[in-house]
């Protein structure tokens, strides 16, 4: 596998870019692995990368029913931030942010992590008070976040209209400067390439039909469309389909799957320097490096596996964006899509061990799983390798729904879900 560098780029340029080697092989399953990961999105491939690199476990397969990065990894709005309210969440998301900073170097793959800042607009007195409280809580946790007056917000994001005559006047904003965006496909590809280089098999277009358990209850392997594959450790990282897969192992999950839609405009010249979110008007927007405006908001109201969602939600989203940024009201939209997100009752993830021996789970990220990709993958790999919780993922257990120790980001959310 070629090491990417200025030198390899120059060398391949001289031969017309016709001799690049493949980045990872499309593997056929072996009879047995040490670890099987169900779901080849950023989270699953990332866990394989960290298992191989940090724990020396390379006899690993990552299995996906479709192509790698074809689920929610390729269907999000690429926003990365860590300004969550609760201590448990702050540690986890900030751990992810620490990993994002060096991810391109770590993977020798440009994930285009751009620290352009995420700005959350306050439109009401209540917004101002709750954001300022949020900022103080973040800073006590060592998480970067600061308050901007509306003039400072305008200076940071010139397209912003701060006129008091606006339909939703801007009274100030919370800015996380460390936050930003990354290229979502490159995250999946970078992790895949790095994992494959260390010996991990990536098996695509192979649905996992069931998780098989032995007479003692422990995991024995997975039934797939390409036959039974043995493994003593199985990690499920299947986003919206997690509850379907887990049910085959006899575990009912506290999850519901909703469509989360997003859309992009036609590409235009650089106009939008950061990410702007508005909870009250309810939408978020940034501009991709290709020039498209990337726009999203909340999930559809009903559960679904259709990867589509309804037009009323798109109408609501676009209405919110044009209320805040009337300059965009004549932009043409290029395409929209939906991903299926798995939502827990407290809007926090479930990450780590399960009551079934040898079965691990990484799910429940709801509408915000992309930002935490390296953090979730890194701590999940630790848990798989050592069969014990990582200090950072320890609070995100499945049994908190029995004990009542919820991490209620639904109530504390930095955004509406």
């Amino acid at each position, binding site marked *: 596998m070629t090491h990417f560098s200025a030198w390899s780029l120059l060398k391949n340029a001289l031969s017309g870019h016709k001799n690049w080697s493949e980045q990872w092989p499309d593997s056929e399953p072996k009879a047995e692995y040490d670890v099987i990961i169900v779901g080849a999105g950023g989270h699953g491939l990332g866990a394989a990368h960290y298992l191989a690199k940090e724990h020396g476990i390379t006899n690993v397969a990552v299995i996906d029913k479709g192509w790698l990065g074809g689920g929610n990894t390729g269907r999000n709005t690429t926003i990365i931030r860590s300004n969550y309210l609760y201590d448990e969440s702050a540690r986890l998301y900030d751990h992810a942010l620490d990993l994002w900073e060096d991810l391109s170097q770590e993977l020798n793959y440009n994930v285009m992590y751009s620290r352009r800042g995420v700005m959350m607009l306050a439109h009401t007195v209540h917004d101002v008070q709750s954001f300022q409280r949020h900022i103080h809580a973040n800073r006590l946790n060592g998480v970067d976040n600061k308050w901007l007056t509306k003039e400072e917000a305008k200076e940071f994001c010139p397209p912003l209209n701060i006129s008091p005559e606006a339909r939703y006047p801007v009274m100030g904003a919370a800015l996380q400067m460390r936050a930003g965006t990354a290229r979502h496909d490159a995250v999946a590809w970078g992790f895949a390439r790095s994992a494959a280089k260390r010996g991990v098999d990536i098996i695509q277009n192979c649905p996992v039909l069931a998780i098989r358990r032995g007479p003692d209850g422990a995991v024995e392997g997975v039934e797939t469309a390409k036959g039974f594959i043995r493994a003593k450790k199985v990690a499920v990282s299947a986003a919206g389909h997690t*509850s379907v897969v887990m049910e085959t192992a006899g575990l009912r*999950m*506290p*999850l519901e799957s909703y469509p989360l839609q997003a859309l992009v405009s036609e590409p235009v010249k650089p106009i939008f320097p950061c990410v702007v979110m508005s909870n009250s008007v309810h939408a978020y927007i940034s501009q991709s490096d290709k020039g498209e405006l990337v726009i999203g908001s909340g999930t559809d109201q*009903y*559960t679904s*596996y259709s990867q589509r969602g*309804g037009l*009323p939600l798109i109408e609501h989203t676009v209405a919110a964006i044009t209320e805040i940024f009337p300059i965009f009201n004549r932009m043409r939209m290029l395409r929209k899509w939906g991903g299926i997100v798995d939502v827990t009752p407290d809007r926090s993830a479930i990450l780590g061990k399960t009551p079934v021996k040898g079965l691990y789970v990484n799910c429940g990220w709801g509408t915000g799983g992309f930002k935490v990709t390296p953090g979730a993958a890194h701590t999940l790999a630790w848990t798989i390798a050592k069969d014990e919780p990582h200090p950072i993922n320890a609070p995100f257990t499945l049994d908190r729904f*029995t004990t009542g120790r919820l991490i209620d980001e639904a109530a504390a959310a930095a955004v509406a879900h």
Partner: protein
Amino acid sequence: MLLIRCPYCEETLPEMEFTYAGEAHIVRPENPSDMSDEAWRDFLFIRSNVKGPHFERWRHSHGCARFFNAVRDTVSDRFLTTYKAGEPRPDLASLLSAAGQSESEK
């Protein structure tokens, strides 16, 4: 956009008039103080999250404002039927064969 038939108004109307209200036929506990933590977890948090025909509640918020039940396929988002609150769970097999017939008539 979903088109939903309200069994009270007896009209098929756009999704915008309705509010989704979660899984249907979840029975409230009769003796809450006798329940174990596991039973509370199942009642409060565990949902079937079916991939396929799903029994669910809707409310005709911008119409008669009443709650009713529906069976919707969560893969195609197509409604198999809607029925009044309090009516028994319809037989899924006959609903599916009826849906299959109407599909083949097209």
